[in-house]
């Protein structure tokens, strides 16, 4: 079963496209990272998955069924932490839990209370007076309280200091380790996601640029450095995702179509997730490439 499945999903506002031609099948039981610059369409995609937004074209399925927009019953299976972690500032922490208990039939109050007390978050404190990290953890506890099968988080660790960020991710991974939970989280910083994601979706300008298992993607890509005038050779047998040139040297991010070649004048090394994402987001190689580099047609616009 896919956690989220989309078929040519589209969302537009007037003449502006927030998301277009998005076809994905995100496997269940993984920690999925949705990466892309601001305005890439990440929030749009996530909002469509949790029922806050309806597509203007195409379809989306969640946990093997209709999306929550069309079937509100699905809301029980999906937990969501929205961007900026909205909470009722005047509510005490205990009130927020009661809010969750009243509105979610599958609520596990004991576990929620235990989770918060382990973190040292007092139940009598007002939500608006908690620190940024504590608010994030309260929002997470609220989303997990209904024991969802899919947990969606929109930029959960943005604006958190490094310690709070670490604690949040520790908690999140602890939940993922228990099994039976699919996690999808978005970020515009790859560094946040590198340690925790085993499946990656790269979104830019409203379109999917790259998608797949993180380990597989890393295994398929290499960074080649070598003489500029030979850059075209590589392009014939493999896909050059991104090229940059300094003087007579070329550095190419390459997607291998066959086992990595052993070329004498080139040094090869593996890429990090960050380099991979940057390479795909940077667009086609600059126009001053040698003529034989015209085969970089797979690079997205």
């Amino acid at each position, binding site marked *: 079963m896919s956690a989220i499945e989309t078929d040519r999903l589209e969302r537009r506002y007037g003449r502006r496209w927030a998301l277009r031609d998005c076809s994905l099948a995100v496997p269940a039981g993984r920690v999925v990272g949705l990466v892309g610059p601001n305005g890439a369409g990440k929030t749009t995609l996530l909002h469509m998955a949790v*029922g806050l*937004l309806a597509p203007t074209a195409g379809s989306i399925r969640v946990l093997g069924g209709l999306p929550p927009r069309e079937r*509100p019953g699905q809301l029980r299976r999906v937990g969501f932490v*929205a961007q900026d972690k*909205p909470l009722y500032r005047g509510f005490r922490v205990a*009130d927020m839990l009661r809010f969750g208990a*009243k*509105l979610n039939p599958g609520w596990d109050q004991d576990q929620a209370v235990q989770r918060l007390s382990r973190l040292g978050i007092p139940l009598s404190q007002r939500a608006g007076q908690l620190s940024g990290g504590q608010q994030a953890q309260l929002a997470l506890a609220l989303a997990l309280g209904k024991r969802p099968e899919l947990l969606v988080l929109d930029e959960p660790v943005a604006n958190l200091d490094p310690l709070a960020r670490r604690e949040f991710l520790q908690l999140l991974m602890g939940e993922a380790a228990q099994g039976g939970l699919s996690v999808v989280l978005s970020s515009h910083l790859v560094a946040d996601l590198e340690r925790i994601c085993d499946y990656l979706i790269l979104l830019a300008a409203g379109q999917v640029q790259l998608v797949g298992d993180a380990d597989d993607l890393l295994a398929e890509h290499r960074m080649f450095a070598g003489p500029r005038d030979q850059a075209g050779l590589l392009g014939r047998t493999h896909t050059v995702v991104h090229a940059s040139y300094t003087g007579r040297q070329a550095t190419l991010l390459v997607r291998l179509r066959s086992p990595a070649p052993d070329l004498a004048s080139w040094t090869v090394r593996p890429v990090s997730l960050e380099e991979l994402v940057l390479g795909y987001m940077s667009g086609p190689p600059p126009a001053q490439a040698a003529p034989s580099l015209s085969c970089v047609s797979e690079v997205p616009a």
Partner: protein
Amino acid sequence: MIWVAWRQHRIQLSSGIAVLAVLAIVLAWTGHQMTSYLHTSGLSACLAAHAGCDSFSHLVENRYGWLLRNVVYLNFLPMLAGVFWGAPLVAREMETGTCRLAWTQSISRRRWLAIKLGPFGAAAAVMAAGFSVLLGWWLHPFAQVSFGNGFARMDLNAFDVQGIAPIGYSLFAFAAGTTAGVLTRRVLPAMAITFAVFLPARLWVQSLRSHFATPLTVSYRAFGTSPRAGLGDWVVHSQIVDRLGRSVSDLTVITTCGIGPGSQKANVFTCLSAHGFHQIDRYQPASRFLAFQGIETGIFLGLAAVLLGIAVYWVTRRSAS
């Protein structure tokens, strides 16, 4: 589930009720004062004896005329239900983004909206009913008094604060506020729109009120006292007409028949009958009070239903961002 609505809006609800409670106490106290003055001044005894009560009337008018005339401002009370309860109801959640939290819990948006509307709608109706009863009691002793405008139940402005009409006005205002909030997604614009919509709507329906049923007519001597005086009618229109039924201005009659300080009554009466000048009142009798209340309340409840329908449609079918 009601707990959620209560916990979220308890300050709004309780402060509104508290303000209204204070107002109610003020009304009760002033009502008591005025009623006792009615007796001590001798006006009530005079009215009971159906004697000419102008001098007694003046006494009461001097003392409490301003208070009675200002009851018209209580017409703003129902609007408060829209501005302070309706407008922020949904708009605040959309403004602060907490709708993204509320709409991803396990209940449908329709249910969520119903939970919010319920307590406030009920409170608005109950408050309106309470004030209607209170003001009915407050105005009742003055039903036969007139300081330029009358205070009988049928009279303009007295009609508006009694019976079931205030319930209709309050629910309409509440619905208007809620819907404005849903459409604008911002609290302050929603409040402003509610204010801007409520007044014209009320005035417009009020202008239609004289047409709810065909007015009856009664005729009598020009400038005289209507034979139906004191029966609690709402005189919609009063004019002098000539023998042929053509409308004649007061000034024309005065100059034609020489009505003035030094004129002789007999001469004036002869002149009037010679020209056939007589007064025609078009009126709605007091017996139509309940029917008119029903029509007016029905109009506003209908408007409220339409507005709430729009609000429900917008919230459930339209998207969040």
